[in-house]
């Protein structure tokens, strides 16, 4: 029973972090209609920016966090303007955009590798606190914070998408770009907003993940894989779907350890992705589109 509870808590923590990545990914994918691999690159850059500001420049932690998130937003915006917008201008297909974003992911990760080396980095901000006993399972206060904060952020985003003007316009573009343009919504502006908001969430995710584990240059790729797996399982373009998919992924991954050696944890994500792509490409909550 203890193991069960521990695995459940681990699943929740994993699910919460995956959800943050998946949301940003899903937001960009639903409006811009291509797979933004580079989202993982933005995440890893934000995490290392925090490391640089806090651990090397010794800035105040709060300030470092804010600057890191601003940096993520700026980077997301820059990628959109400098690369994706140019490609859209000449009406490139989504496959071209996909390869471009893959190139950007490798570019960003290589820069990190060049600047900081391959070794793992830690923040040492919060001393590894003694885990709280929770019906026999162990969870650190930070991990409780991660779960609560991500739920809060996801709720905020949900509210933003439903109630605000920009949120509504984003959903309109995601649904039908041409119709949205006809009623006067500038799709370029909406793409820009998707990148800004998606990257901001990636920045926050980077901070939370960076506090919980070590930083490595390749973390962007692995988190990106988890993120888009979560988004696709749940139904691409649907915010609740991405959350559901991410928690589901967290559960399957962690409970998979019961049957498989832990090294295979990463492969599990892809096996699920594979199954969904084959049998239910629209995901659990997604709407069927031509794919």
């Amino acid at each position, binding site marked *: 029973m203890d193991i069960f509870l521990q695995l459940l808590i681990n699943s929740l923590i994993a699910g919460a972090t995956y959800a943050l990545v998946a949301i940003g990914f899903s937001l960009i994918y639903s409006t811009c209609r*291509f*797979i933004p691999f580079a989202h993982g690159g933005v995440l890893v850059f934000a995490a290392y920016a925090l490391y640089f500001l806090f651990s090397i420049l010794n800035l105040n932690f709060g300030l470092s966090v804010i600057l890191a998130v601003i940096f993520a937003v700026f980077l997301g915006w820059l990628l959109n303007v400098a*690369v994706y917008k*140019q*490609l859209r201008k*000449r009406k*490139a*297909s*989504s*496959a*071209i955009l*996909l*390869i*471009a974003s*893959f*190139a*950007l992911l*490798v*570019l960003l*990760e*290589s*820069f990190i*590798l*060049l600047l900081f*080396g*391959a070794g793992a980095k830690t923040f040492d901000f919060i001393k590894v606190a003694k885990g709280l006993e929770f019906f026999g399972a162990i969870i650190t206060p930070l991990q409780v914070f991660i779960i609560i904060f991500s739920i809060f952020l996801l709720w905020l985003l949900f509210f933003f998408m439903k109630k605000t003007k920009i949120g509504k316009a984003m959903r309109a573009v995601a649904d039908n770009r041409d119709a949205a343009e006809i009623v006067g919504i500038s799709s370029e502006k909406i793409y820009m907003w998707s990148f800004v908001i998606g990257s901001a969430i990636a920045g926050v995710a980077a901070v939370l993940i960076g506090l919980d584990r070590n930083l490595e240059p390749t973390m962007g*790729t692995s988190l990106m*894989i988890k993120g*888009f797996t979560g988004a*696709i399982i749940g139904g691409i373009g649907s915010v609740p779907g991405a959350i559901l998919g991410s928690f589901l992924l967290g559960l399957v991954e962690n409970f998979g350890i019961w049957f498989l*050696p832990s*090294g*295979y944890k*990463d*492969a599990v994500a*892809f*096996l699920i*992705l*594979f199954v969904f*792509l*084959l049998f239910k*490409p629209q995901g659990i909550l997604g709407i069927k589109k031509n*794919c």
Partner: protein
Amino acid sequence: MLILLGIYFILAISLQLAVGFAGLLNLGHIAFYAIGAYASALLALAGWPWWLCFLLAGVVAMIFGFLLSLPTNKLKGDYLALATLGFSFVVYVVALNWKGLTNGSLGLPGIPKPIFFGFIFSDNFNFLLLTFFVAFISYFIIRKITSSPFGKALEATRDDELATRILGKSTFKIKSIALMLSAFFAGLAGSLYAHYITFIDPSSFTLTQLIPIITIIIIGGLASLKGTIIATIILVLLPESLSFVGFPSSIVGPARQIIYSLILLWILIYKPRGFYGKVELE
């Protein structure tokens, strides 16, 4: 270095067959390369003759190509890219974790140099001749394939799958064969690599390895064999100048990836069809 050029050329030209001619956006090409390398290394370490290991490396990769083509046949564009990427990742994780077979991250050392009827390809020059010979044969076969009626059917499938089906061609079969052939040559390239370096570990087969090959086929131009040759030469030799200048390898590795990805981005934005390309990715 020239040996690597030959190996990259076989990889690029086989990917060209899948992506350029058949229009299958396959991001799992490195997996076939890895499968070929491991198959050949394991068989050779078990004492099988080199030429058999070499051919079986291609055949094993081809079988995996067939298996991958079964479920992914209906997928297109983005979804195919994700599924093949997933395949590549699963192969990598298995190579890393199935310690009984692959020795995990420690890798397989001591892979013997090729011996063919008593002749040992031990020094680099002989191996270079062997690589170029294989590269030339691969080029020749792939050129034959693409200019044959089957090649036309491939391009027809890429351009308009429905129309090809109406003409009575089984696009399922066509796409499946294209992926199998592509995997076969990637497996051969993997075998050459394993016997050249004599040591393989999973880190040689990560996703980032895909960037140079994709860059090559896009710069050369999709569905252009001539472009692939020229692009391979330029792209393999260009970053080598970095090592000549004398940067340490911890800088050369990432710097090479940065150069490749920048070139790739530049070409996608300004010259999307590459130098000799006939089509664009869809």
